[in-house]
């Protein structure tokens, strides 16, 4: 548990938390025509790109430009959150979904250098959940004394590839994004947001929970079971049983919205909720962090946000899904995100009794090392359509589990923490080739879905039937293993597998067993 003492944001409304809050209070949308790159060959769908960076320099081959923007956004938001404080001992956790040109650690180092942060640092990449995952890890670092203050959040940039990918997948709307509305479809956005986390001095991150759907590479489980599990885990971790408002993932797609509500209302009774994606767009790796910053900034003003863009709710969407924001006392909020790959996260923030954490006994049972060409025995999944990274990870995790199949009753009781610094190379190559050959409309959808750091982990949860807490970090095996230890100690699990995959070097995995002390 940590306290959020300061906020910083860059969004479609511009630089600064004030711009973000002003937009939200006025119920405006930042979605507008895309000017930063050419949308030739695609439908021109509005996106909430950070203004002021619209020079038409970003083409598909200018991925390097995207890195520059991601760093710029993060530095601006980070500096705002930092304020006048001395950055020397402050740590950094950055969530992002960016494809790589340079290694992700370089991105993190450059952000740290620009802001002057001297503490420990790591990146996380759980696709659409990255921003929230960063906050969770940052909070854990403060709580565990890894460092006393952490700047945690996310940053992301909408590139022509991402824009094309979602459109080709049929996820994007015809016009502006309208979460929970009869008019379906998502809109994209960019930006960054950071929270300064320390031991006390602000609303607290009381707890958090993650889960894996184990369902599909891009579609969430229709019964919302993953969202339900993540929320339940978060409530349990925080030691509370309700919140005043849920900031949902609410992308506006047919697949997400109803499934997500099912999961949310199964974990919480009908609670007020809203989605900000009709306002800010889906900001990918920044989403979880930007949404938390928005929630906290509004809560401080006694407000909960509405769902900009929602006019005619779909069947099955109750009145608790707010169209307009409203004033009310907000003591405690939840923020949820659901990612490609089927990972879900829920953060619990605000006021509450200081949660007691479990302290279970954790023992390391097994360590496995596999060569890069190691392949799993295919049981329960088809290996022929999986990326080599995914196969290597499945082999490593399966070996850590002793090669024994996971029983239904165990599925939620095994955690998985994966260190995955690189985007799966084969899928990335296939994706880039398809765009080179066919332009944006010729994008290979399966490659787009698989060219994410989270994708092998998602495939692994589906292949092995794992549905417990699941995270993807990019800071090296030791950082992942430390996080795995915390999960094994604090959560009611039987085991946690920690695995690290590198297509060139091979894989390592460790099985941690958890028992009551």
């Amino acid at each position: 548990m940590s306290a959020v003492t300061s906020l910083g944001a860059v969004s479609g409304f511009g630089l600064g938390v004030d711009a973000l809050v002003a937009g939200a209070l006025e119920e405006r949308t930042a979605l507008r025509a895309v000017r930063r790159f050419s949308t030739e060959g695609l439908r021109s769908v509005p996106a909430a790109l950070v203004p002021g960076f619209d020079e038409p320099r970003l083409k598909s081959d200018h991925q390097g430009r995207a890195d520059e923007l991601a760093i710029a956004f993060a530095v601006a938001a980070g500096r705002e959150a930092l304020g006048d404080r001395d950055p020397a001992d402050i740590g950094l956790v950055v969530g992002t979904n960016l494809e790589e040109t340079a290694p992700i650690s370089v991105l993190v180092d450059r952000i740290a250098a620009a802001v002057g942060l001297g503490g420990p640092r790591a990146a996380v990449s759980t696709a659409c959940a990255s921003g929230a995952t960063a906050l969770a890890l940052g909070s854990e670092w403060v709580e565990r004394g890894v460092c006393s203050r952490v700047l945690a959040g996310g940053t992301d940039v909408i590139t022509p590839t991402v824009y094309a990918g979602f459109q080709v997948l049929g996820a994007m709307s015809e016009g502006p994004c309208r979460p929970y509305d009869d008019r379906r479809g998502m809109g994209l956005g960019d930006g960054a947001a950071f929270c300064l986390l320390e031991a006390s001095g602000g609303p607290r991150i009381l707890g958090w929970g993650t889960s894996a759907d184990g369902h599909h590479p891009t579609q969430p489980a229709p019964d919302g079971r993953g969202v339900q599990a993540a929320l339940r885990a978060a409530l349990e971790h925080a030691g509370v049983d309700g919140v005043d408002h849920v900031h949902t993932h609410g992308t506006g797609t047919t697949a997400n919205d109803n499934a997500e509500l099912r999961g949310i209302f199964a974990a919480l009774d009908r609670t007020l909720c809203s989605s900000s994606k009709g306002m800010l767009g889906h900001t990918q790796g920044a989403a979880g962090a930007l949404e938390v910053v928005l929630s906290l900034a509004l809560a401080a003003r006694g407000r909960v946000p509405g769902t900009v863009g929602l006019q005619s709710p779909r069947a099955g969407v109750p009145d608790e899904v707010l169209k307009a924001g409203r004033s009310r006392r907000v003591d405690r909020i939840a923020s949820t995100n659901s990612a490609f790959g089927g990972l879900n996260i829920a953060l619990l923030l605000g006021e509450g009794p200081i949660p007691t954490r479990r302290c279970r006994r954790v023992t390391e049972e097994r360590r496995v090392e596999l060569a890069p060409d190691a392949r799993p025995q295919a049981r329960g999944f088809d290996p022929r359509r999986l990326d080599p990274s995914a196969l290597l990870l499945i082999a490593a995790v399966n070996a850590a589990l002793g090669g024994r199949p996971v029983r239904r009753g165990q599925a939620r009781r095994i955690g998985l923490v994966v260190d995955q610094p690189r985007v799966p190379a084969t899928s990335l190559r296939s994706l880039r080739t398809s765009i080179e050959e066919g332009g944006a409309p010729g994008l290979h959808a399966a490659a787009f879905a698989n060219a994410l750091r989270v994708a092998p982990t998602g495939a692994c949860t589906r292949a092995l039937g794992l549905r417990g807490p699941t995270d993807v970090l990019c800071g090296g095996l030791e950082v992942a293993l430390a996080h795995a230890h915390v999960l094994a100690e604090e959560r009611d699990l039987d085991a946690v597998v920690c695995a690290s995959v590198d297509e060139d070097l091979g894989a390592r995995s460790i099985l941690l067993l958890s028992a009551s002390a």
Partner: protein
Amino acid sequence: MRAEIEAIRFGVALHRADHVVGIRISGPEAFEVVDALSPRPLYIRDGQMLPAIVLNDDGTVFADLMICADDLDWLLFLEGPSPSDALARLLPFAEGLDATCAIEPHVMWQLHGPYAWECLADLIGPEVVGIPYLTHFLLDPLSRGICFRSGKTGEFGYELWVPPDEEDPVLKALRGAAGRFDAVEVGLEALDLCALETGFYSIRHPAVQGLSVPELQLLWRVELDRDVPGMEAVRAARHPAQRLTWVRSERPFPGGLRSPLLEAWIGLRLVDRERAWPGVDLGDAVTTHPPLLWNRSLHIDAQKHSWASRELDDLPDVRP
């Protein structure tokens, strides 16, 4: 028969599936048993279903098979053989392996129709709506049994697999829920006609008897390099001179069945490969391809449509 077809195609139909044999394989080597008998790889996990077949040694079909993964057990549903013949055929695969292979004495009640999901949701809760095709879930707390979502009519189809001592209360609850949908209890003949209209294989159809897997267009249910009994014969028959094709006529023809909704006679016929394409005149019938009609269920959006609003929902005609 017309009333039965209409219930299946437009409403809710119930059927006690006495023709289905359920065999449970359990134990530490249950996977190995099923892997030895399955003509296709077992790429499914707990909660998922895999359509397959049990081959005769000569490459023809012994049974229509649905393989279901129930945690670490395997539940196999066979259509075609009697329970004792089905068990006798499968038991040898368990020899020498640490697994039990036994008939599961449950009862199967099926629901079919564009509003079958709604009826089932009334019975067990709204989570039903999100269950994907070819998956299953536990009926707890209604029953110790399992609900499978499959169906071979092209409409929503669910199978309730229930222990015999629970049949009475479950059926009572089911009939209670089904009441408001004017549900009709239908026979196998109606279901098989709907399967024929939609393109699903039925082992009972006279025209399929004795045909090889390739002739039946069931190659998708096997993988030719798997060495299960009968596969060598399937490989040998791989490029058949004839293929089973759907045919249709405005007048009756031998082997044809009357479809009340299409107001035509439809059937299956083994046709020379060069002519086994849609639109060929065979004299007494013309070749065609499934689906022969539009399944209403494909237009149903559980969030928007309901039995109560069916008149107003402006759903398209089933006839193409």
